[in-house]
């Protein structure tokens, strides 16, 4: 599309991911994307073991060869701080971001400084993007009776008409208030397939851009909240996925821009 991997980096990825997969016992390793910092870029991959949705392990690297586990536990407090950080990633995992805020404590205006390390911010941003941007087509994954999320072997890909509708895509993230919505009212609702939040309910309307490219064989969904997040779905083939190439900053101006 626009940004992609230089040829040298691509080959390095292939080489190093094979050993990563074996070392960690992953069933599959996915290339998640690249977060561009001002000095250096982070390459991120995710590995899955049994359940495709839960327990995804994230690894990051600065040079596509050495991969470090992202072991930061993302707590709510950390997420709060991460939401407030502005500016690009630096490219140095040990860098500390400082945020100074005016807070009223006990009736007095006090400056509250919070710090967050770049590695923690990276973990938070990856989780935010996964929550809001990871997409999968309807029918690609199914919920097995044991409660695991598995690839649907019977998924043959979608037709063009289905694939160009936003309603055929889901957020690939553990859903929160799924059954309160009108999902059950849909005629062809299938509990095994419709267990994720659909993209149609995203606010604001129009925050996803669906386009057909490549002489109509490929449908891309671009997220406008996270510029650089692209989901793709190849027509009539069970090939789909999403990837993020961007600066790791949410597009806060979206309501003005639509």
């Amino acid at each position, binding site marked *: 599309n626009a940004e*992609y991997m230089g040829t040298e980096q691509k080959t390095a990825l292939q080489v190093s991911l094979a050993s990563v997969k074996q070392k960690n016992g992953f069933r599959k390793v996915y290339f998640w994307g690249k977060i561009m910092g001002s000095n250096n870029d982070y390459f991120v991959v995710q590995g899955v073991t049994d359940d495709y949705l839960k327990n995804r392990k994230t690894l990051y690297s600065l040079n596509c060869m050495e991969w470090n586990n992202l072991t930061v536990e993302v707590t709510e407090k950390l997420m709060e701080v991460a939401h407030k950080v502005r500016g690009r990633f630096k490219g140095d995992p040990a860098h500390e971001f400082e945020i100074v805020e005016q807070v009223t404590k006990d009736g007095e205006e006090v400056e509250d400084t919070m710090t967050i390390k770049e590695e923690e911010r990276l973990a938070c941003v990856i989780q935010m993007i996964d929550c809001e941007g990871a997409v999968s087509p309807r029918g690609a994954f199914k919920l097995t009776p044991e409660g695991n999320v598995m690839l649907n*072997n*019977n998924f043959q890909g979608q037709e063009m008409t289905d694939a160009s509708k936003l309603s055929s895509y889901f957020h690939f993230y553990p859903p929160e208030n799924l059954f309160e919505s009108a999902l059950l009212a849909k005629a062809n609702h299938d509990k095994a397939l419709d267990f994720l939040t659909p993209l149609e309910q995203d606010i604001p309307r129009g925050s996803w*851009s669906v386009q057909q490219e490549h002489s109509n064989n490929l449908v891309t969904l671009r997220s406008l909240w996270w510029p650089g997040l692209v989901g793709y779905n190849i027509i009539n083939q069970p090939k789909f996925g999403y990837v993020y190439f961007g600066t790791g900053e949410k597009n806060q101006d979206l309501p003005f821009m639509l």
Partner: protein
Amino acid sequence: MDTPTPKINPKEEQYINAKAYLSEASTDSGYNLYDHLSSCLTKILDERPENVYDIFEDISKDRKRSKFTSNVDTVQDKIDQSTEVALAIVQRKLFARGDGDEADQEPDEDAETPLPNLMELSFFFEQAGIGLNREEVIRVWMALKNLVESHNLQHVRFWGKLFGTEQNYYVAEVEYREGEEDADEEEEEAEEQHEEETTEKDDGEEGEEEAEEDDTPKPEFKPPPVVPREENRTGPNKKTYFVCNDPGKPWTKLPAVTPAQITSARQIKKFLTGRLDAPVVSYPPFPGNESNYLRAQVARISAGTHISPLGFYQFDEEEEEEEEGEGRDNFVENLDFEGLPTKEMTDPILSSWVHHVQHILPQGRCAWWNPVQKNEDDFEEEDEEEEREEPDEPEPEVGPPLLTPLSEDAEVGNMPPWTPKMSSNLIPQFAIACMHSNLWPGAHAFAQGKKFENVYIGTGHKYSQDNYSPPAPPAIQEEFPSGPEITETEDPTPEEEAALRAAKQDAMEAAEEMEDEEEQSDED
């Protein structure tokens, strides 16, 4: 001879009963389980998929479903083919050669073509990690070739790709041959002049009417004079731009940009939709539709991010000195340029790259225009103007001159404005130098030896760390200050009126008494 009926084994009997039960047709659909199971097992044995146990239910469902969908299939296929085939037909034209006339002439390979070697450039960009994929590049290249053949152009460049919510834009930067462009432009200008004349006439009539009536107070507000746009081939209109939504679709020429559009575009941030005639709904209102907004953004990005290695372009020293106040705006290629080593090009000091497009002043032009000029149309009101306080002469706006190195660029937040990178850290001898802009994310440039190129692939927005907030509405105009001369006096209340009347009555009676007394005294 009678064939004796064989003794039926009890197990066989059970088997026959079971089979009969399984072959019972279902009352709903008319199919029976026996056939269904046999077809499922046949499929499994034929295809041998993995993990059959897990997907058995799905296979069963599929077989059932496949019996019903045969009617619908034909309709769906037709719809699909039309969109795909339509696009393929459009793009097929790209690969077709010229008309019959041109086919007679043998292609002259030595002739200079204004077409760039896009494949070579895209190879370099690929090393840097940006760009479009190969097939897309070929299509764009063919589309550019079509553009060159249909218009008489001196120079063509692939400017970049802009994303829109519904469709994308591919932009080509074009320079007409001298004299060619004027033909198109004259028509446009004639139309504009005609429109201007009609509006002037209307204004003239209104002016006369107003002079006659002197009752109504005339507002003293004069709208600030519209900054005129620069001529073609100068300033932001130095190059012309063509866009198309997909390679193969016809190229549309973007209109020239006016300073008002540039200043407006600087204050808003909107996504492009992909349709050139879409309105741009924003505050402050943007004068124009999406094609104007697109052109304004293209002009800003070109002015901010088109860079070249130091020394590639130089000022032509034979040209006479320009007038004071106007910077030089022309340059020529330096034929002696030898290229700088890659290490120097990726130096974080950024001194080996220069801008070769003029900076756009806050006014929206490249050459400053003094708005306090006295126009010929204002003869009637000259007297009034002198009476009013003359605003101070605005200071001329100055921008960095042409060919300024990047080291003079302002920082973005607390980041350098450009990030230099080498395409490969492992083989530095053959690596190319790449520059990524941090102010306009998506603008990239590369250089290697004597070759260099700029491209923009992105959404067309500037980067800012803080959120965008639209400008505040203008301050409310103040009312005329309230003072005693215009304050209404309050009407007297009924009690006051009564008191006044009573007082008057008393006064009159007193006066009458006095008169009576005087009369009486006179009479005496």
